């Protein structure tokens, strides 16, 4: 589904991604973890073109992304993204947030878009809040709307950039539950997250990133018990102390 070959990226003189290679199959759930500054966020944003790459190529389905490729409209329809700060559109209602991309990007008729929006919002448990504005919802509710908004375009891949990091602890689970059910339905997912429980229980593989490189890839089950690289061991030791 997704092929990442020899991808590098520079911010000025600083190399933020160093020759990354990865392959993600359809229906796979991959978790990316690592210390802050390791380039995880930048890496995941290259997959939908929010960050450009300086060398290498990324293939998502039939779409080839390389330095200089500019028409990303089709790519953005295949890949959905959920942000750490939700980034719902504050001046639109919950329902409008989920319909606007359908009507403006996919040119779906309004009625069809609304029907789909209602279905998705029901799926994430928010049917009662359709005419509210984002500021009236809790963080967990807003993030669930954001997931519905991304799903409304029927993507083949969903990217999650630290989806629960900005949430109060008691709301983390409601979002993880939605992500888990999405995984069970066979969605291809790439998640940057610190939620180890989710990684262990739901992910197929874990990519450990450090200093711009994908240092280690392993099955989710074995990674946490038996990391192979020194850096991964050091990282896990730090975070599992809590």
């Amino acid at each position, binding site marked *: 589904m997704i092929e990442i070959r020899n991808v590098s990226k520079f911010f000025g003189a600083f190399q933020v991604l160093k020759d990354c290679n990865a392959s993600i199959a359809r229906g796979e759930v991959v978790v990316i973890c690592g210390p802050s500054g390791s380039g995880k966020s930048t890496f995941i944003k290259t997959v939908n073109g929010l960050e450009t790459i300086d060398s290498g190529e990324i293939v998502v389905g039939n779409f080839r992304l390389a330095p200089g490729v500019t028409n*990303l409209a089709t790519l953005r329809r295949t890949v959905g993204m959920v942000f750490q*700060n939700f*980034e719902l*559109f504050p001046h639109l209602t919950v329902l409008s947030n989920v319909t606007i*991309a359908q009507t*403006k990007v996919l040119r779906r008729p309004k009625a069809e878009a609304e029907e789909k929006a209602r279905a998705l919002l029901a799926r994430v448990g928010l049917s009662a809040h359709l005419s509210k*504005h984002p500021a009236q919802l809790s963080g967990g509710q807003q993030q669930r709307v954001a997931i519905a908004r*991304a799903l409304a375009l029927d993507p083949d891949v969903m990217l999650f950039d630290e989806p629960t990091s900005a949430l109060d602890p008691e709301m983390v689970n409601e979002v993880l539950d939605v992500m888990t059910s999405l995984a069970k339905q066979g969605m291809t997912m790439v998640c940057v997250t610190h939620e180890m429980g989710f990684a262990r229980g739901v992910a197929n593989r874990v990519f450990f990133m450090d200093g711009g490189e994908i240092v280690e890839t392993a099955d989710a089950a074995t990674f946490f018990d038996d990391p192979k690289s020194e850096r991964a061991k050091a990282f896990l030791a730090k975070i599992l102390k809590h």
Partner: protein
Amino acid sequence: MRVDLAALVSAWPFLMKGLWFTLEITLVGVAGGVIFGSLLAVARLSQNRVLSGFATAYVNLMRSIPLILVIFWVFFLVPWAIGWLTNHGRPVAVGASLTIFTTFVLFEAAYYAEIVRAGFRSISPGQYSACEALGLSKFHAYIYILFPQAIRNVLPILLTQTIILFQDTSLVYVISATDLLGAATKIAQRDGRLVEMYLTVGVIYFVFCYAASQFVKQLQGRLSYGARP
């Protein structure tokens, strides 16, 4: 001090005509100024160096010189410009209203441009990313997502600038136009009733501006997005 109320009563209709013109200028100035100003603000954000350079230069120029000077520029130069454009060879007489409307749109746009630009800066950068991630075209993103938020965030400042515009219209006095102040001056000169006319006009401006600024204060209180307590 003698205040002659009868003179005031007979002058009232003429004053109201002047007030009407003042309101017309204000309306055209706001509408044209906000539209042109928004275009300037977007131009400043553009990647195109020529476009953003021009917009920045225009805004900085207009904000550094007095409005009276701009009024004179437009008043003296527009007839020449039109004459040149239409190959007349001589200046073409242009109505005072058109000159005035043009001046205020061009001038106030620079101020609205700065306000709208501040509005864009107040939007979280993630909003731009979210629009991109959803595949919204730049045009759609600006019209449906970014612009509404920018305007909403700076609405009180926009309205305050409009109150300033309303006061600035009085400067058309320098080309003898008949706005509210111009009307009062003409009556004052004809009938010798300076004190009554200028005091009245002062009161009228005060009432309008005070009411408007109180409204803006109220609006500021109510402009949150209905956030949870």
